[in-house]
Structure formats: C-alpha cells, structure tokens
C-alpha cells in the first residue's frame, strides 16, 4: 500500500492505494465518485475522462499512485450547489444525452478543452471529443452542446 495526497474536486485528501490500482478504481471504489464511468478499460471509449491538473485524461490509463500531489476534477465537481455548469446545462438544452453513460466523459473532455481554447470551432470540438464514444445519440448534439457551452461561458466569464 502507498499513501497519496490528492486534491479531489477542491478538497485535499490522503488515501492509501495499491500500486496496481488505476485512478478509476480509486475514484469509483474508494471515493464513491461513480459519475466517472468505465466502459472499456483500454483507452478507447473515453467514458472515464476526468481532468488531471487541468488536462483531460483517461482515468483507466493512470495508476492512482501516479496522481500523488495532483488536482483531480470529476463530473461531481462541476456543479456549484444547485447551479449546473454551463456544459451540463448545454447538454440538457441540446438533448445531447440519452442513456448518459458517455456524458460525464464528454463533458470533462470539453471542460479542459474549452479552458485551453475558449473559442473553439466545430472542427476543434470534434477533435476534442474524438476519444469519446457514444452508442446512443451520435455526435451531432454533443458537438452542438459543447459549442453552445463555450459561447455561454465566454459571455458569462464562467470557468
């Protein structure tokens, strides 16, 4: 067992983890943060996308021990009280959700991306979501939702 310290959705926590535990195991199992999903465990589906030190990464392809002293943001950390994040609102408004399994991953991929590229165009959004598979809605609505969210985040200076 190794002890790590991580900032999870704004709060620093000390955890004991096995060297072979992946971040997705720690998030879902130990921390009960089940918003992050595991689809494939191989880096292909993107359902496990989270933000690590501000960048979109796959929680199934990182060992928890590698995240010592890092900042992690998951879908649970986006909402402030009752107020949804503009990305969440946009996904609802555009009906970009059916079963919702891929949604947390898509939103977290878009969240890191918009911070780096506040004014993305359609092609850039497609690049950003290229690692997120959806088997229900297709991709048109999620792409529209991300564009709409980027727009509303610029207008309201939201991060």
């Amino acid at each position, binding site marked *: 067992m*190794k002890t790590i310290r991580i900032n999870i959705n704004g709060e620093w926590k000390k955890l004991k983890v*096995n*060297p*072979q*535990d*992946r971040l997705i195991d720690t998030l879902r199992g130990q921390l009960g943060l089940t918003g992050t999903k*595991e689809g494939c*465990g*191989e*880096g*292909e589906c*993107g359902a496990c*996308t989270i933000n690590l030190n501000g*960048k*979109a*990464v*796959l929680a*199934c*392809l*990182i*060992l928890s*021990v*590698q995240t*010592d002293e890092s900042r992690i943001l998951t879908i649970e950390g986006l909402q402030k009280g009752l107020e949804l994040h503009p990305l969440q609102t946009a996904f609802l408004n555009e009906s970009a959700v059916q079963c919702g399994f891929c949604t947390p991953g898509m939103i977290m*991929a878009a969240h890191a*991306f918009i911070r780096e590229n506040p004014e993305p165009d359609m092609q850039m959004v497609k*690049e*950003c979501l*290229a*690692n*997120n*598979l959806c088997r229900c809605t297709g991709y048109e609505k999620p792409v529209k939702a991300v564009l709409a969210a980027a727009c509303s985040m610029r207008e309201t200076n939201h991060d």
Partner: protein
Amino acid sequence: MSRQKIHAQVIRIGNPPFCLKSYRQCRGCFGWRNMIRAARSKAAWQDRPIKCLLTGLTLKIGGIPEDTDLITGGNTDAIQLKSRGFHKPGTIEETIDLLVKYQRDACLIAGGTDILPRHQGDGNRLTAGHLIDISGLGLDYIQNTDAGIHIGAATRINDLISSPVFSSEPYGVLAEAARVHSTHTIRNRATIGGNLCNASPCADLALPLLALDAYLVILGPNGKHLIDLESFFQGPNCTILEPDQMMQEILIPFTNHLALSGFLKLGRHQTKIDTAIVNVATRLSFKENDCIDARIVIGSAGPMVFRAKKAEALIKTGILDDDAINLAAGTAMQEASPLDDIRASAAYRKEMVAELVKESLKIIMKRSLS
C-alpha cells in the same frame, strides 16, 4: 499438416502464455500470432525477437517450414507476476540503480498509454513486478542547441504540436505526425519516448524521426551513449535497450538545407482512436534546386518501421516527375513485408504502401514547384 516442435529461443518469459496454448485466446490485436507465422515465411521477419505484449513472452524464430503447425518448445510455464512495487525516482542515477536492481522485473512507465491498456481492468496482469515512473526526472523539454533539437524522452505528444520548433520545415514533419497520433486526450499523457521504446511497427512518431535522421541518447550503468534511431529497433516491440538502460532524449541533427516533407496515415475510417493500417513519411532535402537527399519511411508494413532505401535511391538520383514517383512507389511496395491482422490484409497494405508513397511524393513535388 505435420506437427513438430520448433526451435524457438525463449528470450523472456512473462505471464502464462495462455494464448500459445489456445489460439482462440490470443488477442489478435497485438498481432503476435500473425507475427510468429510470418517469421516462418517472410525473410524480413526471420531471426528477429518477437514479443507478445500481453504476456511479455519473446521468441526468436529462424527459418521454419511453412507447413508445420506451431507448438513452442522450451519452458513456457512462466511465473505469475504481480505488481509489487511502484517507484518514482527523482534523479536519473536513482532510476538506473532501480533498473540494475530489478532487471527484467522492472518496467519504466511514462504516459502509460501502451502499458496500462493491457491490464484491461486487472492490475494483476501487469507483466512487471516493479513499475518505475519517469515523470519526475525533468525529461520533458524541447531545446535548441548547435547540435540540433533535443527532445526529452518524457515530452508529451501534445507539447510537440504546440511547440514553434515543429510548426514548419525543416522539422515540421514531426508535428504533422503528432497531430494524427491517437486523440487529444491520449496525447495529454502519451510521450514521444514511450512511442519509440514500445517499438510498435506502426508507431507514428518513429517515421518522421527516421526521416529526420534522429539519434537517441541512451543511459545505463556504464554511462551515456548515442545511437541512431535505425539501429534502435530490433523487431516488433523489441529494441536494443538492455533491461538496465533507458532513453534520455531524442536528438534531431541541425540542418540548414531546404527540406520538404509529408506524413500520411491511412486509418480505419470509423474512428480516430486507432493506429495506422499503413503510415508513410517522406522528406526531400534540397541544395539550390537539386535534391540532395531523400527519405521514404514506411510503417505498419514490416516487423519495424523502416526506410525504403531502394526507393529513396531512385528519388535522390533522378528528376522528381510522375515517372520517377511511380517507379519509387512500386519499389517501396516491394520493400514492404506486411501482415494480415484485424485492421487490414497484407495484400491491401502492400497496395496502400505504393499509394501513400506516391501521394506524399506528389504533394512534395507540387510544393517544390511553387
């Protein structure tokens, strides 16, 4: 079909090679089984170490008659290994000490995007007992010196794309390949050193780096040495690195010649999350208006990423026109020795080698005219 035991040299044993006992359990995506088959029939694949990425088992097979069924001899009852340790050294010296201590039981981890997918949710399948994380060694940098451009082995692939050094010729071909490597999300973790050390025959960044005549700085218990990238690759997923060695940086030699280059990657059209069916990098250097050097590098069509040297010679000596391009493309196709796998058949791959070489040389020709 006659069944006979083949004389395969077992170089390394990892987890139980269940895929050897039953073909049905072999995950064809790693293509190991097809590679072993190729080692019996294709000259380019013979006498090279061939490594199964799932089990770590590495075999070297000589000329084995095609009509024999494969059963391996030797001791393949491997030891079940579990990840027992995770180390994050702060210095290169510490890292080498750990490699010397644990030898084949050690595995360096950079971005982890090659090593970790093999777990498939099961950390117990790790083939190494001790993981050594190299992200604390300060090996993420891109520096310009008189010798050329130094790229730290642990530099993330997205950082190559955003670096001004690779935004245009003469070194732009590296960023061109980096942009079509996997996805933005994977590239946030994946490193250039990992891409090379994994030594996949389709590794996207190996192609532009061969076209740029890159060297590698290798570190080990006996110090530092420089090696050219071409001699680094030994076989599919196998490099010249000893268990106690690591890559420190990649050096692209300085050039002041005018160069034109291109990178093309043929993938499956459904998804961007995939390695290539065939990938090709070409690069021509010019002095005044004369072509003084040509590189035609081909991936996913042989045991390793390789330079099609006969095709290069044709381009270097002649005038760059349609006839020369067609001849070079046909020659490059002859130099390729691809496999059938889940992505494409060998025959299709061969055709595509010719097409991609043709297309990328034509793009260069157009650019050279303008």
